[in-house]
């Protein structure tokens, strides 16, 4: 009950933030050079044709009028009409939303699954062989551009050893999961490189805490000391790192989507920007912003779950 109330109040608080984002998204596009009518008609378009098309698209109206229409479309849920696709934006985005969410979700799960044991191991055996290996591997993974790593892994795990499909999104749940494993893994490597460092150092800090000695003084074996007393107290800062990075990944999957031919939001955004598809770019910006806001909400809930001193209010 408390959680429901907390979420609702947070969502209400976030409405002004979203409104601000719509203003920025709207104005930035209008400041950009180039306009959709010229791009659509190409070099053969006469000034009369361009003016006519602008009128059809509603782009000859004053800015405040265009903005109000944009907000109106948002509130009605249709998200307006795409200039490039000549179709309603809502269904277009929804269709592209699931592959993106699946990619981000899967990569986050993979990152967490890699982070927890590796961070624990490298923190407890710091300076040891495993610590060094993990450090080198993840620094390399982080320094290599995602498209390069993607191509390498495709060569290795899809062509030489055909374990995974080369690209595409597949049909049905298991087939799609199969298609997403490789791209999600590449994103997860980048995330895990950050979260392993973060969790490792907080575990090392917590290991020196007095209550860890109290736990040991009870006669607990080291494994219980680590998982019951050290682990939970180390999580807070890593949750922040994971949240910030996941927010970034949501908008930054375009490279991976392109390499693996996944029909996600990132590639849609890039193509819409080059086509100056104003309504589409606006709608996508608001979608990304909403996702980031949801991640922040989940982060706050995670803090409260991990640390009883954090109260939801």
């Amino acid at each position, binding site marked *: 009950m408390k959680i429901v109330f907390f979420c609702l109040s947070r969502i209400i608080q976030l409405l002004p933030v979203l409104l601000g984002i719509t203003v920025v998204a709207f104005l930035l596009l209008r400041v950009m050079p180039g306009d959709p009518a010229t791009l659509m008609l190409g070099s053969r378009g006469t000034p009369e044709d361009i003016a006519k098309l602008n009128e059809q698209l509603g782009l000859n109206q004053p800015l405040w009028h265009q903005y109000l229409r944009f907000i109106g479309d948002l509130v009605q849920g249709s998200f307006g009409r795409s200039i490039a696709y000549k179709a309603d934006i809502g269904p277009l985005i929804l269709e592209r939303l699931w592959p993106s969410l699946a990619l981000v979700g899967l990569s986050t799960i993979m990152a967490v699954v890699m982070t927890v044991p590796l961070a624990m191991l490298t923190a407890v055996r710091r300076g040891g062989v495993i610590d060094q290996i993990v450090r080198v591997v993840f620094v390399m993974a982080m320094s290599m551009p995602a498209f390069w790593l993607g191509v390498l892994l495709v060569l290795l795990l899809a062509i030489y050893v055909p374990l995974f499909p080369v690209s595409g999104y597949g049909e049905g749940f298991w087939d799609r999961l199969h298609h997403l494993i490789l791209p999600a893994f590449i994103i997860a490597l980048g995330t895990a490189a950050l979260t392993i460092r973060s969790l490792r150092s907080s575990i090392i800090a917590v*290991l020196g805490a007095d*209550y860890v000695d109290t*736990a*040991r*003084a009870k*006669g607990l074996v080291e494994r*219980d000391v680590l998982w019951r007393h050290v682990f*939970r107290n180390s999580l807070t800062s890593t949750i922040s790192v994971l949240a910030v990075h996941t927010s970034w990944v949501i908008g930054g999957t375009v490279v991976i989507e392109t390499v693996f031919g996944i029909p996600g939001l990132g590639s849609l955004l890039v193509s819409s920007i080059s086509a100056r598809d104003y309504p589409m770019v606006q709608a996508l910006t608001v979608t990304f912003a909403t996702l980031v806001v949801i991640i922040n909400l989940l982060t706050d809930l995670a803090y409260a779950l991990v640390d*009883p*001193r954090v109260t939801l209010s």
Partner: protein
Amino acid sequence: MSAPLLSVRDLKVTFAGRGRTVTAVDGVSFDIRPGEIFGLVGESGCGKSVTCRSLIRLFGGAAPSRMEGSITFEGRDLVTLRNSDFVDIRGSRIAMIFQDPMTALNPTMRIGRQIQEGLIRHGRLAGRTPRQAAVDLLKSVGVTAPERRLDAYPHAFSGGMRQRVLIAIALACRPKLLIADEPTTALDVTVQDQILKLILKLRAETGMAVLFVTHDLGVVAQTCDRVAVMYAGRIAETADTAQLFAKPSHPYTRALLGALPALHGKQDRLEPIGGAPPDLSAPPPGCRFHPRCRFAVGQCAREEPPLLDVEPGHLSACLRMKEIA
């Protein structure tokens, strides 16, 4: 005199770090008898914390590079005991409470669970539910409304209450030896007094021995049966508490007492001890206290004074103790 519960002989604990080694405890010997409260007194950095942490092999992440000598407890040598066997002694035979109750409880675990952990680990529920056992323990350390407190987290407790909880955790399995590392230093004076009285009461009820580490001679006088004064990694003087206060035979003990305000009689000026404790990576030759000692003679810089009898049960490590006492 009964056989000692714990017998420390020539304990030497060395830490290595950044190209130098520090011998924090250098040849310390003492006995603790069953049921007695043994005080370990000295300035910060004199090795008293390292001594007591050696007894339970918990160094808060900074493990020593070498441990020599012997610590005999219930027929076993704790210096050479394997880690896997030491785990069974911790909490069940030897328990410890720490200096700062504000940081010694896990902030993300309910109080009840923190108390139950040790009981369950060592199988000491004796037919009770873990919850009932924890309630009994909280009652025994004077926490009011224990049933309600079990589900609270540490941040809802005051410093004094937390130290009571920590004592309950330490005493859960009825250990034979309780190591109390400055348990009242972080508390305000009235709470300090309550905690000391609680420790005395529990000692009387359970017959456990207590190793009481402190830098406060007033606390020693109030609680300890016997006391050892440490300086720069060594024991300077050890005696029954009454003997030590009546007839301090080491210049360092005298200097400590001279720096203590008296409540009764004529108040002399408080005498601070000049200088600073030595660097333990390069301690001074001879008697370690001689650079700060008012009574030092040339010989003190050359010869290491052994611990010798002043009177029965009272030992002091000073070349000139006969002249001084």
